[in-house]
């Protein structure tokens, strides 16, 4: 971990307009929770929709995608990556520092609103479950999208395909696809801690934890390996 890289990354991330895209989502989440609570409907009807279908399935992956693909991807796009690459730093140090910042920002941007919504409409244990679930899911997503940003020129497009096609469509038709869906892991972990009917998950916690670790490791190692032999091609003539 390198504090200089982390500082530069955080400034680059939070200093861009792109970060404003994160604002509406938490507001929507808490707004819908308030509507659910005041409507008098049973929480089993609106709870899963707000916490899982919106919180863990939309807000968490989209936030992780915006942040994770920018943490290293923007530097690759504008060429400032040479500033980091021409330093005697182990490439793992660069990747881990970037991942740490992406994870922190993603977790803060998703876990806090989720926890707030859970406290309004659910229970304290649900809040804890959602915080831990979104933290672990956020780390897995961040590692995945960070790796994508080193491997492809269009990390956001590829990431969206994963979120939309794999996690939303394929998972509902093919049962086995769940095992490779980060949001299912996040939901399973949140469910096991929160222990409420507001979250229903279909993957076991053990599977979820093991798969999360695999996602994190594969993403981090993949990104490091790719960065090790990263060749500047864009500006060659």
């Amino acid at each position: 971990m390198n504090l200089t890289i982390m500082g530069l990354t955080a400034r680059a991330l939070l200093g861009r307009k792109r970060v404003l895209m994160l604002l509406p989502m938490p507001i929507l989440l808490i707004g819908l929770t308030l509507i659910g609570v005041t409507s008098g409907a049973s929480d089993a009807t609106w709870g899963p929709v707000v916490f899982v279908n919106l919180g863990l399935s939309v807000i968490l992956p989209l936030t992780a995608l915006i942040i994770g693909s920018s943490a290293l991807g923007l530097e690759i796009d504008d060429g400032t990556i040479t500033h980091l690459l021409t330093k005697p730093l182990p490439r793992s140090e660069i990747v881990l520092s970037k991942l740490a910042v992406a994870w922190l920002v993603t977790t803060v941007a998703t876990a806090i609103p989720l926890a707030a919504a859970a406290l309004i409409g659910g229970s304290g244990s649900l809040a804890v479950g959602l915080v831990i679930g979104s933290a672990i899911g956020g780390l897995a997503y961040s590692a995945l999208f960070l790796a994508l940003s080193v491997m492809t020129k269009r990390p956001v497009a590829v990431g969206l395909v994963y979120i939309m096609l794999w996690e939303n469509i394929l998972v509902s038709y093919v049962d086995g696809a769940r095992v490779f869906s980060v949001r299912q892991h996040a939901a399973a972990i949140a469910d096991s801690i929160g222990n409420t009917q507001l979250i229903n998950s279909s993957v076991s916690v053990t599977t979820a934890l093991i798969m999360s670790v695999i996602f994190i490791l594969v993403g981090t190692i993949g990104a490091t390996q790719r960065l090790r032999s990263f060749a500047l091609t864009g500006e060659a003539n």
Partner: protein
Amino acid sequence: MTTVELNGVSRWYGNVVAVNDVTLTIGTGVTGLLGPNGAGKTTVLHLMAGLMSPSQGEVTVGGESAWRNPEMYRKLGLVTERESVPGFLTAWEFVLSSAKLHKLPNPDDAARKALAIVEMQDAQDRRISTYSKGMRQRARVAAALVHDPTVLLLDEPFNGMDPRQRLHMMELLNRMADEGRTILFSSHILEEVEQLSGTVQVIVAGRLAASGDYRHIRRLMTNRPHQFTISSSDDRLLATVLMGQESVSGVSIEPTGVQVHANDYGTFTRALAKLAKEQNIRLTTILPSDESLEKVFSYLVAT
């Protein structure tokens, strides 16, 4: 002293060969890497800076492989052509971050020294995005120098600089060369190379076309046959008298005027005006028809 060596290096992208079997050694002092745009200069510099793998051959800096070897950056600094600077930083923050990333024992000191070398202390607390192109370039040179590298690579460092900034940068590079560093800069402008360096490596279409003392290369360039298109009040008479000149090797009459091949640029251009006056011929156009740098370079490749 650190040398940079390319040994039988080629680099291709798919079917396109960017660098073709180049072998060269760059030692202490200033060396110019000269070539027309698209000749492969940037690829050569990126190969040396370990930002690209050679498809074939070997690139070493001070005896160590440049590719996949981050430790090499302790002795090498690179200033890219692309303005890759995070504009939200001030020059001070940018250079200081470089020093910290190099894990120097005293980053503040190193950053202060580097900014003093490029004389940017006065503007160091302004954001880089507010700088002129020359100032940005200097900030980037300071960041590349902060760890006191023995090898400094610069890609088109004079692009977009005004004459004063250019002179300043030239002085700076010369001073660093005098301290025993290995400095290599690329350029597509012969005059820049001429003013700055004694040694030149000429790259054309990915190949090393010429290498050595610039005076030698300059002579090769000026002594080559030159072509002129001349139109006058009496083309046929002009052609006749020109053919009698020692410095002319061929004359042909074209619809556009007289095409002249001259062996010796200097003698021919001096003789032409005198001859025209003697014969009472009025010259209306004199066009050197092959003065583009590409032609000059391709002539070098042919010899």
